[in-house]
């Protein structure tokens, strides 16, 4: 009887310990959920279709790292759940973007400012998160004359575009990896007429076959307007004439296109050596003739 009591106590104790462990595990799982930081950016190039870019990060070992595979829902207006821009999933760099679809054209036109919203519903690893970004509609106009570039920044107020003072503008030339500044000054600030000018000091920069290069005037990470840019093609670059040695005499051409120097050098060596050898073979016949004469 006592043995049975002892067994029952042991069983009850074991179950209690197991429950405690599993409960603790469940608790710890909940505690392991990490929080996400979402950053939104607005981009518009050449007054065309704007897009929203999201960057999602999470803290790992005390440092922010990109969070990949996070599904986000983007809205045109923070307060209107009916204006969905689209769903995106972040890539390995924690980034994702979406263009504002044509279906939201009317909503886009109704306001001079928009507050974009990105939401994440949460999953097993991360807690739910959201972020918003308010952007006022703006545009840049670019003009060029005598190797001087002038950009004018306008903001939409009521129904008209008005110049904006004090906006930092960058001028550059589009290259393969990034934009190259047109001179040593990194940024220019617009005056009361919304204008900023820069002198083009990249005279010898290679352009296309006609010498065309693409100039860009841009406002970057502006608190009010986000990222806006405008481009213009000008014939200010050096003409790029591609050099092709295809079908010319090179070391890697076909056999009939061997370099002349190689043919001369190798031919000379081969002829010199084999002429000597032929003479040495002929020498055998001379020796043979001498032997026959002796007989």
């Amino acid at each position, binding site marked *: 009887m006592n043995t049975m009591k002892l067994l029952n106590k042991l069983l009850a104790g074991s179950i209690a310990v197991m429950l405690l462990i599993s409960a603790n595990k469940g608790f710890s799982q909940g505690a392991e959920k990490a929080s996400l930081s979402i950053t939104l950016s607005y981009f518009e190039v050449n007054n065309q279709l704007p897009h929203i870019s999201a960057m999602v990060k999470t803290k790992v070992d005390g440092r922010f790292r990109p969070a990949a595979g996070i599904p986000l829902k983007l809205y045109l207006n923070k307060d209107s759940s009916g204006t969905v821009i689209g769903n995106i999933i972040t890539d390995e760099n924690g980034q994702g973007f979406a263009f504002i679809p044509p279906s939201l054209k009317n909503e886009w036109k109704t306001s001079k400012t928009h507050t974009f919203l990105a939401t994440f519903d949460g999953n097993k690893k991360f807690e739910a998160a959201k972020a918003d970004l308010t952007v006022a509609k703006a545009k840049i106009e670019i003009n060029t004359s005598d190797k001087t570039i002038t950009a004018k920044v306008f903001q939409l107020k009521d129904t008209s575009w008005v110049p904006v003072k004090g906006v930092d503008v960058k001028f550059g030339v589009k290259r393969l990896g990034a934009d190259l500044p047109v001179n040593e000054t990194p940024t220019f600030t617009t005056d009361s007429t919304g204008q900023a000018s820069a002198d083009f000091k990249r005279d010898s920069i290679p352009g296309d076959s006609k010498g065309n290069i693409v100039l860009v005037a841009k406002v970057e990470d502006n608190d009010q307007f986000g990222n806006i840019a405008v481009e213009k093609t000008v014939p200010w670059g050096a003409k790029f004439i591609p050099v092709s040695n295809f079908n010319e005499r090179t070391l890697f051409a076909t*056999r009939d296109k061997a370099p002349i120097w190689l043919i001369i050098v190798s031919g000379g060596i081969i002829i010199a050596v084999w002429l000597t*050898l032929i003479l040495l073979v002929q020498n055998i016949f001379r*020796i043979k003739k001498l032997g026959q004469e002796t007989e």
Partner: protein
Amino acid sequence: MENSIKGEQIIQDLLPRKFKTSGRIWVGILVAICLVGAYAYYRQLRYGLVVTNMRDYVSWGIYISNFVFFVAISLVGSLITAVFRLAGVKWGAPLTRIAEMIAVGAIIFASVIIIVDMGSPERFYNLFLYGRIQSPIIWDVIVITTYFFISLLLLYYPLLPDIKILLRFKEKSGPGLSKFYSFLGSFWKGSHKQYLLSKKAINALCVAIIPVAFTIHTVTSWLFATTYRPGWDSTNFGAYFIAGAFLVGAGSVVVAMYIFRTWYHLEKYITPDHFDKMGRVLVLLCLLYLYFNVNEFLTPFFKMKESEAGYLNDLFSGSFALTFWFAILTGIILPIIVLLFKSGRKPLPMFIVGIMVVVGAWFKRYLIVTPTLLHPFMPMHDVPQMYKHYFPSWEEWAISMASLAGTMLIITILCRIFPIIPIQETLDEHHETVK
């Protein structure tokens, strides 16, 4: 009178001899190995190169290693015959024919193994039809053909006076060989004019063979060095290959010297002094080759570029480490240690050292070719597991061994037909000594 008897004795000692039972067994073994190789080659022709274990990455395997080995060994003809002769090294005279026979045998099989590596032999024809003068492969074809021809001439010219002697012993040679000797040199009467023409030709050949010999192995090294690969991308390769070639060539001569000396009882003609002097040459060549090896491996090891690290680690401490250190120790370090002592330069130790050098050199050639191909700059992706490793198939082994046996068979046949030691030169030397 006594001088003439001594002269006759020299002739009798140095005349080619018929094979005894042991000689026939030796030839039988070599022929058997060649036949197995021929069967393996038939299989390669029948089923294609798929019978080998060469695949997309290791496309140059044991065949090309063997090719480099043969080209290297053939350089001995230029070292012993030409360099020694032009430098006035008279003690090397009894070794010249051995060296030339090895050179001819090796260069023949260097050409054969290249054709084997092509898969279908008719592809060789394409080299002439579509070959580009810009390609080191074509340079190699040209220079090997040239070197083979010069080696043949260098074997033939000094034979002429000996053929006259051989023709005096028709009953000993037999009718077949006598006819052959007549065809080769019955016109040689030993007149002063003939002698002068022959001497001039030999001197011209000695001068010509040195640059051609340097070219043949430099061009062989360029087959690798002009290909951008870890371990091959080296400006040191030409000199490194030449140094290694002279070493293995000299090692092979030492081995042949010992075998011929023992087999044909040529102790009076190939003396311990010859071994001692060849030992000194060998140790010099070992040190030279060691120097180039240090150059070849120490600087990349010091830099340990990421793109070459896999290859270098594989050699030094990875899957090729055993072979690598075996080749370095056996082929270079141990011979240096042994040969620095006078007792190490006696015939038997020299024979053993010669074998070590030749075996070490064969593995060294394998290491030059294969590990590099297993470590391309671009990582191997999405390939079958077997592409990532290489070990020759039995067909490759059989063909390679047959090529080695074939080289030895050519040398054996040549020493059956012609005197191993130049008879006339030995007689002339004897007469000079008597005077």
